[in-house]
């Protein structure tokens, strides 16, 4: 009996993220759990994941056996160390196999489309993390530099003896890149791969030579470099504390000179505001002071040109009068009235 129309055989029972949540999930995936920072990504990370993708992602099986994938560098012993388990009695690797060679000259990346960039490699705020030290609530600012783009070119070669094997590998590669690009999650970062070209290096033209197929796939990785050593974590400004240092002698008390020309009496009214206990006056006239009235003052010290004097005293032109007081109540105003006769 056939299924009724519009019958759905595959139901998604786990919700899939969309929109903002999906983008946030990508960011969360990039972040290194527990550190609030993204994971770094360097050359070896990209190489490692590319090898892993070819080995386990493409996963070529020929003749019932998994085809070995060998990443090659120039060190001879390393090459032998990677191939000995797949070698024959003459210690030669047995066909079929896949080799990966990364071109040793990574190029300036093209995933910014060649646009110019901010010089100086500044760091940018990636995240603000609240902190609490028991007294002050604050933030730590996590900053990272802009990633440096890089293009890595990998040469993937299949060595085999049969056209059928070529077809299988070709099918897997073309399927993987059917969307034009293939994304790898390298340390959580989505990095695209582009299939640049497919070539043939088969050794089949010389009759008196061993024949085998070599199919070359040139794959470009549009990656970027993000070095964890360049990450910065700095505390944000949590509280501004302003310090005011005051010196009592630095400001002198306000004063008013009242002259009574009819009887030659001169009165100086001095007003010591809270925090001011000092008075200074350059003398312009010759005056003999005979009387002083205090308010809110416990002690006072009068100096003329630096010499302490007591009432009565006389000042002449160019003298400097200095009065230092001690208040009874420092939070209140204090007053002195000096009275003298103009000579």
């Amino acid at each position, binding site marked *: 009996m056939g299924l009724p129309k519009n019958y759905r055989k595959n139901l998604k029972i786990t919700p899939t993220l969309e929109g903002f949540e999906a983008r946030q999930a990508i960011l969360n995936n990039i972040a290194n759990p527990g550190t609030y920072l993204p994971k770094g990504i360097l050359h070896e990370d990209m190489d490692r994941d590319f090898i892993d993708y070819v080995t386990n992602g493409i996963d070529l099986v020929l003749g019932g056996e998994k085809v070995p994938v060998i990443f090659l560098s120039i060190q001879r012993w390393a090459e032998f160390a990677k191939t000995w388990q797949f070698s024959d009695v003459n210690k030669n690797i047995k066909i079929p196999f896949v*080799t990966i060679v990364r071109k040793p000259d990574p190029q300036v990346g093209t995933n910014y489309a060649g646009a110019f960039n901010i010089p100086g490699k500044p760091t940018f705020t990636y995240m603000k993390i609240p902190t609490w030290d028991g007294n002050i609530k604050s933030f730590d600012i996590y900053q990272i530099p802009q990633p440096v783009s890089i293009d890595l070119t990998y040469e993937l070669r299949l060595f085999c*003896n049969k056209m*059928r094997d070529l077809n299988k590998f070709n099918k897997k590669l073309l399927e993987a890149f059917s969307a034009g690009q293939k994304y790898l999650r390298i340390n959580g970062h989505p990095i695209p791969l582009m299939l640049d070209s497919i070539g043939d*290096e088969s050794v089949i033209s010389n009759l008196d030579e*061993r*024949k085998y197929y070599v199919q070359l796939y040139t794959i470009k990785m549009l990656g970027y470099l993000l070095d964890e050593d360049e990450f910065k974590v700095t505390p944000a400004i949590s509280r501004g504390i302003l310090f005011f240092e005051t010196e009592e002698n630095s400001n002198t008390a306000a004063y008013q000179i009242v002259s009574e020309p009819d009887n030659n009496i001169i009165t100086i009214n001095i007003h010591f505001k809270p925090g001011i206990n000092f008075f200074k006056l350059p003398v312009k006239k010759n005056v003999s002071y005979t009387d002083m009235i205090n308010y809110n003052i416990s002690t006072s010290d009068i100096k003329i040109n630096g010499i302490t004097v007591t009432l009565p005293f006389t000042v002449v032109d160019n003298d400097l009068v200095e009065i230092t007081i001690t208040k009874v109540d420092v939070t209140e105003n204090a007053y002195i009235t000096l009275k003298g006769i103009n000579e």
Partner: protein
Amino acid sequence: MKTNRKIPITRVNKFFSQDDFDLEKEFGREWLEGDINIKVILFQVERGESTTDDVYGEADRDEIRFKAPVEVVVNFNMAGPDNKAYNPDGSLRFLEHGNITFGVYQDHLDELKVEINYGDYIGYPETETKLKYFTVSNNGIIHSDNAHTILGFKGFYRTIICVPTDPDEFQGV
């Protein structure tokens, strides 16, 4: 074209006859088979019996069927091994056997009732336990040139060229 009508060969008959030719061959075979006695193992592929795919006509290493292996006495010559690399950048080096070039008397093949064809496999026992396989890239079936005759009388031996083969292609016995 082979014909049933026999044409007498009378070339250089003033100095050389069929009897001389046979005698020379006997001397040579006595030296090669009696004194030198280097043998290779011939695996004649059963082309009709081997399993192949419909499109490419290729067979897996265990799908190639062959007649009973035959020991063939040959005038053996193996070239030196080549130090090569699979990749153009020099990585994945391998040491490849040199080609085998051997001469074999046509009479010897006729007596064994075997034929060496393009693509047949040749086993060469390097040691008591190590058998290396080659495939025939030139079966030398045309052997009427001067080098393969005695005084231009008739061809009497063939030069076979074999190139190394992969274990993935043929694994023999």
